[in-house]
């Protein structure tokens, strides 16, 4: 908890650090790291109910496109809210249809959903299709650090949501739903509603992160915004950092993006091979993630994830 606050403090003062000629590059990288971490935190919110979603990239992409399309008319903040709203609304539809499915069946349904959404965006006229969609920068580009603080705000919002859920009654309901649905039900836990609420929070944050990404990347294509890589990244980070925690995805996201960036600069060709190797070793030797290294006693949230 204290470490979480320290990290958030660093995020806020980061632009003031004297980084010299590296400043522009590190601020850029930091923004992408914040967005990826926010997405990972959002994925973990649903994972806590035992549901493995592969649609996080789809919500991210929906948020990105909805914000990108409406930013010109509405302005930055309302457009981001529209992005979050579109993602949340689509999660309600998907969730109502699929959240009774469990384990691998739910994962496959969310994967199919991602493909459907990506194809729709690719074929629709108003999204720019395969050519892509140019997006205006946040706040019309008038505020140099606007994009940075927007990404930081999404990260902080995700962290606060994750902490809040983790300390509320909902966390008991999520843990019970994950560990034994029938038992949870006879203990009064409305499991479908718990999953739906978790899905809603999770997708709204993912949509918000997508919108911020759109205003940072300034250009969206269906391959990029809806890529499976996005969905995989959203689940690799929490697994690397520590599932069902706030600190895990936060630490994991910032470290993994930093590591990936550093490897890309150092090795250039084939850096992904080394990156993948590090991930494999980390998952083999840290089954409870980074967080497991300095929390010896198993807390409720740290059992092996069920597929």
């Amino acid at each position, binding site marked *: 908890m204290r470490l979480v606050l320290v990290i958030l403090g660093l995020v806020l003062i980061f632009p003031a650090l004297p980084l010299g000629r590296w400043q522009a590059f590190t601020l850029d990288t930091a923004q992408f790291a914040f967005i990826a971490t926010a997405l990972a935190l959002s994925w973990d919110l649903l994972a806590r109910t035992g549901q493995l979603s592969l649609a996080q990239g789809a919500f991210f992409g929906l948020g990105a496109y909805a914000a990108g399309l409406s930013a010109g008319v509405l302005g930055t903040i309302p457009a981001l809210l529209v992005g979050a709203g579109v993602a949340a609304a689509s999660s309600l539809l998907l969730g109502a249809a699929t959240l009774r499915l469990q384990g691998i069946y739910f994962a496959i349904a969310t994967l199919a959903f991602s493909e459907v959404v990506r194809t729709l965006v690719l074929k629709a006229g108003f999204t720019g299709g395969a050519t892509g969609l140019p997006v205006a920068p946040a706040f019309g580009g008038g505020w140099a650090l606007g994009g940075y603080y927007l990404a930081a705000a999404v990260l902080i919002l995700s962290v606060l949501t994750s902490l809040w859920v983790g300390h509320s009654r909902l966390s*008991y309901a999520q843990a019970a739903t994950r*560990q*034994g649905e029938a*038992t949870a039900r006879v*203990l*009064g836990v409305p499991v479908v509603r718990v999953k739906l609420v978790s899905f809603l929070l999770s997708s709204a944050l993912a949509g918000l992160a997508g919108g911020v990404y759109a205003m940072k990347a300034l250009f969206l294509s269906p391959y990029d915004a809806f890529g499976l890589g996005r969905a995989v990244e959203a689940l690799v980070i929490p697994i690397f950092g520590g599932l069902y925690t706030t600190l895990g995805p936060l630490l994991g996201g910032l470290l993994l993006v930093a590591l990936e960036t550093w490897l890309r600069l150092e090795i250039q060709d084939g850096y992904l091979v080394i990156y993948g190797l590090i991930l494999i070793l980390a998952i083999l030797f840290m089954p409870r993630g980074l967080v497991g290294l300095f929390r010896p006693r198993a807390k409720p949230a740290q059992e092996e994830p069920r597929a």
Partner: protein
Amino acid sequence: MKLEVHNLSAGYAKAQVLFGLSLEVAEGELVALLGANGAGKTTALRTVSGLIRAWGGSVHLNGQSLAGISAARRAKLGLGHVPEGRQLFPLMPVEENLLLGAAFLAWEHRAAGLEYVYALFPRLRERRGQLAGTLSGGEQQMLAIGRALMGRPRILMVDEPSLGLSPKLAEEVLQTLAQVRSEGMGVLLVEQNVALSLEVADRGYVIEHGSVVLSGSAAELSGNPQVQKAYLAL
């Protein structure tokens, strides 16, 4: 409050298990539901608590029909269920397992609930920080019952609490249920251990092939030659 089950039928896929089961449990009484393996005891509890859908018949709690009401909602109405095999959350500490039992049913009473359960099972208080999966079998059963009690049920259904316990521990656990009954809760106890159940129960039903074949006070059932022959091995 009274639980009334009338002419209940249920099953899994095409295999019917319950054939017109009827029984009643009122507050302040401990009723044993007895029968051999496969007679339908667990299915009866699962149907009453809403985990599986009834094919026919009715379940009323406090005069209200439970048809179409979810398991979570039935728990909220005062129906507690300690499932077969305890079904604890093994990687959660003891106290969190208990708090979970109150989370959606009696959250505002959780502190009093913990006190009540710890007074009933002092050993759970000693082990409050321990992971549930590391408890002994007897302690796990106590935790499963305690977790259900945290939701302040008016009628508590307990499935095979003596399973896998030593005779001494089994008796201890059943005595606790008798105590809970004396405080005004209704208890429906499903057991294969007929002798022990009839020691603590007020009344009992014997079921075979999914319907009641015999019912009466615990004393009547203990004295019944059929029961003695089939279940008490006298």
